[in-house]
């Protein structure tokens, strides 16, 4: 009833191009931001932060990154885990080499380094497409994990081969290490997520986003109207890897604290993020959030339902989770290839007409 464009007249192109054209959506967005920044930090505890909020925030950044590459530019990538590892290890090297520099800068630099690595591994995309490109990025995944396992310089020659996040701070607040509070960690990741989403939205609605989508939809026509395919694909790889690198750095430094590369950034991670954007919705920023939330919440919900309420053994519930995720992927690919984001759009279309659909 109140979810309408009617009476909300757009008188400039700026207003017409805004992210939430319907007033109600806009208020909802401000409301969510206010709750996330103003209310959640006061009620957060370690369980909520570690089981749900931190993984959601961090995976959402990774999903935004992969969505830019796969959803917007149409280049399938299975190297997300490897690029997250680049972010994590470059963050680790920066943290240990420059202990006095703010974590903000470390994480951003880690993203920048990952962007460069992403561009290098994006070069084959100029020649190969589709499945073959997926296999090429798979090679990046295995190569990067192998590299971080084998070259001791990356983990500072530690005996275990792991990397451990030392205690680092931002403006005097401890963000990483065992003494960091969950509130600080949550807010730190939240700031990165909000900034990433804003930047991703800005890029995808402007010229560069249109060149990516043009390459995705029809590369020959894109070239004929002046899109340089080399530039378009490599910027997509760079921007995508930048976000993935940031998420990798946060995943290691803020969330896990200690990382063994094969375990934390293996091929399963690549698939997990890919599933997030497939279930959430390809080519949609909101879809990245929805997919990340869904796949982070699903195991938790299943555990609460299966173990705590029904009293089933833990291992059965864990296996159930694999079955359900697999089934959902197939269902989404068949029934709704545009994912949760499309369901959301359809729901909004309906809501706009409700309660008089004719």
């Amino acid at each position, binding site marked *: 009833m109140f979810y309408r464009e009617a009476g909300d007249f757009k008188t*400039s*192109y*700026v207003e017409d*191009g805004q992210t939430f054209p319907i007033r109600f959506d806009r208020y909802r967005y401000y409301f969510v931001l206010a709750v996330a920044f103003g209310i959640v930090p006061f009620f957060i505890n370690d369980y909520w932060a570690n089981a749900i909020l931190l993984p959601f925030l961090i995976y959402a950044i990774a999903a935004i990154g992969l969505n830019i590459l796969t959803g917007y530019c149409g280049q399938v990538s299975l190297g997300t885990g490897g690029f997250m590892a680049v972010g994590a290890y470059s963050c680790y090297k920066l943290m240990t080499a420059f202990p006095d520099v703010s974590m903000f800068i470390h994480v951003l630099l880690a993203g920048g380094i990952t962007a460069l690595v992403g561009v290098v591994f994006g070069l084959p995309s100029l020649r190969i497409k589709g499945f073959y490109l997926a296999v090429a990025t798979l090679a990046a995944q295995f190569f990067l994990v192998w590299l971080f396992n084998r070259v001791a310089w990356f983990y500072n020659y530690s005996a275990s081969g792991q990397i451990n996040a030392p205690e680092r701070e931002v403006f005097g607040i401890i963000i990483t290490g065992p003494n960091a509070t969950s509130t600080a960690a949550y807010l730190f990741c939240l700031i990165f997520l909000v900034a990433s989403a804003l*930047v991703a939205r*800005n*890029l995808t609605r*402007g*010229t*560069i986003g*249109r*060149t990516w*989508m*043009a390459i*995705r*939809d*029809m590369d*020959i*026509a*894109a*070239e*004929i*109207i*002046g*899109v*340089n*395919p080399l530039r378009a694909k490599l*910027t997509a790889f760079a*921007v995508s890897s930048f976000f993935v690198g940031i998420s990798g750095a946060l995943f290691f430094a803020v969330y896990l604290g200690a990382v063994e590369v094969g375990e934390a950034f293996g091929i399963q991670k690549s698939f997990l993020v890919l599933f997030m954007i497939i279930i959430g919705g390809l*080519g949609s920023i909101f879809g990245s959030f929805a997919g990340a939330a869904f796949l982070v919440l699903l195991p938790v919900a299943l555990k609460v339902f299966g173990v705590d309420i029904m009293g089933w053994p833990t291992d059965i519930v864990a296996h159930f989770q694999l079955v359900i995720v697999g089934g959902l992927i197939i269902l989404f690919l068949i029934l709704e290839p545009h994912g949760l984001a499309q369901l959301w759009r359809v729901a909004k279309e309906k809501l706009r007409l409700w309660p008089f659909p004719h």
Partner: protein
Amino acid sequence: MLDQTEGYITEDGRKIGGVVMEMKNITLRFGGVVAIKDISFDIREGEIRAIIGPNGAGKSSMLNVISGFYVPQEGEVWFRGAPRPQMKPYQVAQQGIARTFQNIALFEGMSVLDNVMTGRLTQMDASLWKQALWKWGGAEKEEVANREIAEKIIDFLEIQNIRKTPVARLPYGLKKRVELARALAAEPKLLLLDEPMAGMNVEEKEDMSRFILDVNDEFGTTIALIEHDMGVVMDLSDRVVVMDYGKKIGDGTPDEVRSNQDVIDAYLGVSHD
């Protein structure tokens, strides 16, 4: 009537300028097949130039040579008084040559407005950083300025009511019009139309003809088009090139071409003894 440098005035009073594009002895081969054999012709500023010929005559190949998809084995393409070095299609687009395709090549996943805005690409140059910051980087200002031009073209082609519709949902005739809009959005110096009226009914053809004439008249855009409908070609174009089996068999005003014996033979068929 034809002055080499000065151009001429058409019967309906439009002024045609000097030569914009000149094809000099173009030969294009695919392996053993000769698609274009030693063809030369010019396109003058402000005129509507048609390339006609039976199926397989090499018309589309010619257009692909102009837009940079094919590189001819022999011959030169002169654009605005200078020979054009070998270029990628996107560089040709940046020089101010836009085109449409015989089989529509729109971006199906994007809205009509986004498709037209993509056509503005060669005119927009906000860097990645500026775009990431949007309002604070100045990208929004550029977007709005270009949106205004895109909207003018949308108005001009009378597709306002579908501007936010995804292209995949549109019928064929409208898709053709959106494709023309996208090409026009680049404000091209030379517009190439590959069978703009293929598969249309009479009414849609009339609409499209009117748009082509209006574009030429109002924006002064030079147009080169390929078309099969002889009536349309003879009515629209100022000069016509006729191709057959990769060779040029006629070149001149519609009336000259119509009375050319080779052209009549090619179209009506003649026994090759």
